[in-house]
C-alpha cells in the first residue's frame, strides 16, 4: 500500500503544491490537510510547507502552532509520526517546541533566494536516510527569517547528539549558528529544514533532483514500519 503523506495548508502557505508534487514524484500519495481540521490519523507522515502562514503575524509560525491541525500533529509527532517542516514549517516546529531554538531575521537584513549547497550531516533521521553521510546537495533557499539561533547549551547538545541534519556548505546565507540548515529531534522523526527540497525534485523545474531524497527517506521508513 502506498504511504499517505499529509501536506498542511495554512492561510498563507505557498509551497503546499510543490510539496504534494514532490511526494508524488517519490512514489507516495499526498493528502491535503486543512489548518482548521484536526488530523484524524489518516496520514502516515506530515509535511508542513513553506510560505507565510497567517501572514507571519506576531512571529513566523507563532499562530499556526495553535491551529487545530497542529494540536493533533504535535501530539502524534511526540508519538513518533514523521513530520518534516520546510522553511515556514521549520518555524512552526520551533514555535511548537517540537524542535529547540528559533528562526530569526537574516543577519544581512535581506530576503535571500538562490540555489544553496548543503552537506547532509545525519543520514539516520526519518527524512534523510536516503542520503549518504557527508553527501553534498544543491537545493533552493528562500527566506527572510532563516537565521537559526539557540542557547549555547542547546547548540552543544544538537552537535554532541548528531541532531544537525544539514549544514550550509560554502556561504552561510542567513547567519545561522554553526551554519545550521536543518535539525532533528532526539527520536529522528521530526526534522526542520530551512532550504526547500520540494523545489528540487526535477531538473526541468529546479537546480537538481537532489531534494527528492527527503521524501524517498520517509517512504523508506514507512515501508519498514
Amino acid at each position, binding site marked *: 500500500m502506498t504511504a499517505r503523506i499529509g501536506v498542511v495548508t495554512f492561510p498563507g502557505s505557498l509551497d503546499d503544491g510543490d510539496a504534494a508534487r514532490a511526494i508524488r514524484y517519490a512514489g507516495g500519495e499526498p493528502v491535503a490537510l486543512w489548518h482548521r481540521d484536526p488530523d484524524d490519523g489518516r496520514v502516515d507522515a506530515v509535511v508542513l510547507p513553506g510560505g507565510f502562514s497567517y501572514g507571519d503575524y*506576531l*512571529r513566523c509560525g*507563532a499562530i499556526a502552532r*495553535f491551529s487545530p491541525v497542529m494540536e493533533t500533529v504535535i501530539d502524534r509527532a511526540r508519538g513518533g509520526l514523521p513530520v518534516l517542516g520546510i522553511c515556514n514549517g521549520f518555524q512552526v516546529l*520551533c*514555535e511548537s517546541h517540537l524542535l*529547540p*531554538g*528559533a528562526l*530569526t*531575521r*537574516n*543577519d*544581512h*537584513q535581506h530576503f535571500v533566494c538562490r540555489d544553496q549547497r548543503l552537506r547532509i550531516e545525519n543520514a539516520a533521521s526519518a527524512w534523510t536516510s536516503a542520503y549518504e553521510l557527508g553527501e553534498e546537495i544543491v537545493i533552493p533557499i528562500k527566506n527572510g527569517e532563516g537565521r537559526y*539561533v*539557540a*542557547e549555547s547549551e542547546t547548540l552543544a547538545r544538537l552537535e554532541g547528539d548528531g541532531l544537525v541534519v544539514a549544514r550550509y556548505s560554502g556561504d552561510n546565507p542567513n*547567519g545561522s549558528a554553526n551554519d545550521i540548515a536543518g535539525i532533528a529531534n532526539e527520536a529522528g522523526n521530526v526534522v526542520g529544514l530551512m532550504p526547500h527540497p520540494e523545489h528540487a525534485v526535477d531538473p526541468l523545474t529546479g537546480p537538481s533532483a537532489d531534494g527528492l531524497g527527503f521524501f524517498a527517506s520517509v517512504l523508506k521508513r514507512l515501508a519498514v514500519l
Partner: protein
Amino acid sequence: MARVVVDVMLKPEIVDPQGQAIQRALGRLGFDRVQSVRQGKRFEIEVDADLDDPGLVQVKEMAERLLANAVIEDFEVRSLP
C-alpha cells in the same frame, strides 16, 4: 475593565537586524549620535477584570504562551491607569 501593556523585546544577546537598519537610517537623517536601536513590540490588552484581580495573572500566561517566544524574547507586563 483593566488595561494592561505587554512589552516584548528581543533578548540582548540576539542580534536585531531591524534595529540596525533603523539606526543606519537615523544616521542618514543626520541623527549622528545614535548609539544603538532595538525594535520591540507593544501589546495593549483590555481584560474584563479589576486591576487588583488575580485574573490579571492570565496576562503573564498569555505573554509566555503566545505573545513572546522565550527562546529569543523577554517581556514585561504592567497595568495602565
